[in-house]
């Protein structure tokens, strides 16, 4: 699936970023292939906001469509914020 389909609060693992330029730009900000990110907000028909640790990054809808992710099986409770622990397992949901 692609990042634009992610739901709010879902933890996903980035599988591929197709475009080379977008990939390098994303790596600079901390999103690279294999990385776990939390989808922390989705603006309807607008950008997707992902969180990695304390950093929030907004990605335009068209861009999110180009980022392949796979959902990480974390109990999808009504958690506002999932904090990633050091070993990259999603824990500490409210």
């Amino acid at each position, binding site marked *: 699936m692609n990042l634009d389909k992610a739901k709010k609060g879902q933890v996903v693992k980035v599988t591929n970023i197709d475009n080379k330029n977008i990939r390098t730009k994303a790596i600079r900000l901390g999103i690279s292939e294999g990385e776990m990110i939390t989808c922390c907000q989705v603006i309807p028909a*607008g950008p997707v906001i992902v969180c990695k*640790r304390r*950093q929030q990054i*907004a990605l*335009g809808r068209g*861009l999110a469509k180009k980022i392949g992710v796979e959902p990480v099986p974390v109990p999808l409770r009504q958690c506002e914020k999932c904090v990633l622990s050091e070993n990259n397992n999603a824990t500490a949901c409210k």
Partner: protein
Amino acid sequence: MSNQACNNKIVLIGNPNVGKSAIFTALTGEYREISNFPGTTVKISEGEWNASVVVDTPGVYGLSGMSQEEYVIRDLVLNASLVINVVNAVNLERDLFLTRQLIDAGVPVVVALNCIDEAEKLNLEIDTAVLQESLGVPVISTVAIEYKEVNELKEKLLDKNFNLSNCINEYINKEIKSLMENYGASRQEALFILDGNKDLASSYKINDEIKKDTFYQIRRNEVNEIVNNSVQDKKTSLVKDPLGARIGEWLLNPLIGFPVLIIVLWGLYEIMGVLIAQKIVGFTEGVVMGQYYEPAIRTLIGNYIDPASAIGTLLVGQFGVLTMTVTYVIGLLLPLVLGFFLVLSLLEDLGYLPRMAIMLDRATSYLGLNGQAIIPLVLGFGCVTMACITTRILESQRERRIAIFLLALAVPCSAQMAFITAILASMGPKYLIFYIIIIFSILLGVGTLLGRFLPGYTSPLMIDLPALRLPRVENVLKKTWDRTYDFLKEAAYIFIGGALLLSLFKITGLLEAIQVIMQPVTVGWLGLPKESANAFLMGFIRRDFGTAGMMSLSMPMLQQFVALVTLTLFVPCIATTMVIIKELGWKDAFVIWPSIFLIAFTAGGILNKLLEIFQGPWILFLMVIIVVFTLMLILAISRIWKQSESYL
């Protein structure tokens, strides 16, 4: 700058929003000078500390030359005797990427771990010793926003023994070495070639594909490892985030974010359009300048010089340097510009602007722009010239062209808006709404067409969100004043020059001649009195100047309305034109300028003809329908010819 100072140059560098300027101020106390970097308009500030020149730079994410700023800063870094890399303790994963790049570049680096207090509030524990060890350079915690707690940093800087880090990734080192050996590039050059600098690569005739993304990925993994080893997140579900972080979250929630956005925009209008543009300016311009200053100066000058003489006209005539110029600059521009920059600096320091960009990303995508373009577009309501410079934050040439075109065409600057609101206020709310619909439709229509048909790509939105912070009063005030001063200083010269030119035209009778030449357009096509040529002529110099000129002509309401619309769209002022030439080049400027000219007069003329044909009480209603219909038509046509979506 003395030679000795040149030898000792400390450059502050860091990602946006990490507190570079705060460290700069804490070190040097004062901005010695803020100047544009030679040949560019990248703002570089210099100060002095302990016989060293300290340079503050705009925030960048790297030195790969992805933007003009990155090039400028890269050169500064390479010539520095020491680089202070300011990083935000909360966002180490992002910030250390640049740190690694600096270390790899082989320049002496001291890392200032800033905002350590914010990290503590968020229950992040950072092991400075581990960080220092894995980076191989000194790491010093600072809380620069309090302008204290930089003593440790100062002590370290006095130390002056900065060894280069030897913590360099093996793979990167190997690649750099191979480039150095095979092509004879210097170490730093080799690094930047790896970083994707095509100019350097071609100058060394390197044809192999440089795997920039592999290189980046390795650096990313390295940074992630460092962060994993040195940062511990102690946050538990029981601990709440600080209020600022929570409000930041709420603002991103569409249910809260959109209403807040509307309130902010409405507040902006209330403050700028109503309070300042009408009430305050009404007092400063109408009462202080109009009733007291102008009569006084006329009497005073009249004692020595005949006001009807040539010099008298230049000084205190209709376009007098001592009358009109002073009134406009002090009575009108000063309160407006001051107010606008105050509000803008507040929003900026609060960290609200990127959130605005996110909320509006969808809307601006119709114009072929991403949400970030909203920042120059909003800035345009303050000063179009400055906003055109700000379009640099947009990544592609195409986006810059669209944004600058729209700014130059349909965004009235604060000074012009003052006159527009004043004229519209006298006409009643019906005209105000109609005016907004017309201008907005033209903005949307032209933007849509540009977005669809202009070649190139639009870069997608990819921004990181700074934390919401309570702005510091002195910081906001200082910024406001600096910007206002810069703006007025420039505007005053142009106003004086413009006023002198107009007075000369008047004295020599050239003004009359131009009025006659322009008659077919002004009288025939737009249905305005021939004196309106003055206003257009003034509009060449500054748009608001033109609108002001329109105010002094008496004509029927509908004519006034036509003039208002035409002048809003009319060509950008001299300052903006110069910035457009500088930013986009002569070629673009030569296309943009006449296009705007044409659009303004076409729209004004059509409006005039429609007003002639349809008269009566339903006229405005009819016009709105026609405008909206035309807009829909444009949108529909664009949809059919939709370009395939392309990113980079």
